[in-house]
């Protein structure tokens, strides 16, 4: 059992959730309630990682993060180390490939709030900010939890993008999914089996909680 890989995976998943969910809330509200030119295009871009092979996404991220790219160059100058094959690069990649999981459930949750309820909040004297905290967020809460759990679980299980952008550096970019592959390659099936079981348990727990929450939703939401 490669504990450092599990811890790294958990750190990556936690970091992705911490960055992506606030961004998801920011992006989901206008997507849910406003109409603007190019909305369909933006929604398509958000959904794109769902259908793109992870290796394709990984390849483009590798090119974009590399030392020869403007982004990689600027990052290396600022931070003093490269973006590829580092935890930070992995985190950035993880945020990008989780965009649909982090935004779509929140968008659906905001869409489900009747417009009149938000208007009633404003007409009750609540500022836009207060209406967000007191009314919108409590009503969108199940969507936020879904987004967080899906993002977390999806990050734990991601393989292709991680391998392309992060490689397999112990303690830096070797996540549990990579470690399992690594152990299988080395014919260490005991370790691979144990880690697979841990990942299976975690994933089931995560997905299960989303479904339990979704089934409870009508009672508190309708």
């Amino acid at each position, binding site marked *: 059992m490669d504990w450092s890989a599990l811890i790294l995976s958990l750190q990556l998943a936690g970091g992705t959730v911490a960055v992506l969910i606030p961004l998801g809330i920011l992006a989901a509200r206008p997507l849910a309630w406003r109409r603007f030119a190019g909305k369909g295009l933006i929604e398509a871009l958000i959904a794109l990682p769902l259908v793109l092979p992870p290796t394709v996404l990984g390849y483009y991220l590798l090119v974009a993060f590399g030392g020869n790219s403007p982004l990689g160059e600027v990052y290396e100058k600022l931070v003093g180390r490269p973006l590829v094959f580092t935890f930070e690069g992995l985190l950035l990649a993880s945020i990008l490939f989780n965009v649909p999981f982090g935004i779509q459930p929140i968008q659906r949750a905001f869409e489900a709030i009747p417009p*009149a309820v938000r208007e*009633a909040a404003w007409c009750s*004297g609540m500022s836009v900010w207060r209406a967000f905290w007191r009314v919108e967020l409590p*009503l969108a809460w199940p969507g936020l939890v879904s987004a967080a759990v899906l993002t977390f679980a999806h990050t734990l299980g991601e393989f292709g993008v991680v391998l392309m952008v992060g490689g397999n550096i112990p303690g830096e970019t070797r996540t549990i999914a990579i470690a399992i592959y690594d152990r299988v390659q080395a014919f260490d099936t005991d370790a691979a089996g144990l880690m697979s079981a841990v990942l299976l348990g975690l994933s089931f727990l995560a997905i299960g909680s989303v479904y339990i929450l979704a089934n409870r939703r009508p009672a508190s939401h309708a």
Partner: protein
Amino acid sequence: MRDLPGGATLSVRVAQDAPIPLDAQIECAAGELLALVGPSGSGKTTILRCIAGLVYPSDGRIVCGGETWLDTRAKLCLPPQRRAVGIVFQDYALFPHMTAIENVMAAMAHVPAAMRAKRAQELLALVHLPGLENRRPTQLSGGQQQRVALARALARDPKVLLLDEPFSAVDQVTRRRLQRELALLRRAIRVPIVLVTHDLEEAALLADSMCILHHGRTLQTAPPAELMARPASPLVARLIDLRNVFDGRIERHAPGTGTTWISWQGHVLEAPYRPEFGEGTSVSWVIPAASVILHRRDRPSRGERENPVAGTVVEMFALGETATVLIRVAGTDDAVLSLSVPTHVARRNGLDISVPVRVSLLKDAIHLMPRS
């Protein structure tokens, strides 16, 4: 109990071409209930939303109690948070995750925190909802939800109370009860109240004045009885469901007897004196169904000399105790008079399809209007 909000006049002028055309002007004094009435799509709700600050018209001015909420020419437009409006939405729009009392307290940011719960209790008692403070909206009936919505609207100490079809989502019995409660509650609220409804009966029952809207235009504003008796135009008459709207021509004026004679379908009718219509002018005229009087067969009376008209019953239907009778005027193809008589009177007089009858059109009830 603290005084309920008192205030001053609401004055609204809004105009725009799109998305919903508007050209409306309304005034509502403190303590007055103004009903905005019109068919679906006539812009009633949009005007209400303009007042609340949820819709910004391209041109307009809204002043409430000396405070200007909107003045497009001065580029002034306050957001809903800064307009003291209490609004009851059509489907109430209660906050589903809060209990009844939390819903009411949510609109009390201006009240010191320590006093909110007590004040909310008072408001819930005022709308006759005691003992249900801790229920969520889903655990309340439609009528109870409406009461919470009303309490929440009052919780803000509004300078104007806006009601958007507040009785449309409940059953008939509850509606009658809520209407009665509103009529009683009004005595305690001294702010302008604007009620949007498509229900003429409801408007006539509750409103001090009715404003008739059509395609976003305010056509006429008047007390219900006055509006029913003297609509400004044939269009208004049709919108308030007056059936007996006809075209005629001014024959002559007789100032001495206070009479204007009009010709209509071969009859010459006496109408109240209206010298502003010149002799020979084409006019429209209207008479309420209740002022078309059936002549009794068994016992002729003197009133029968007042605008007598003969015809044949072409349609008759009884709705409870009142029967509506349609009569085709003799010698015409399409002139149909509508009258309401008590069902027992219709039966006693043997009214039925094809039966010949005579009626009188009460002179004082005939109202002349410019021809549309």
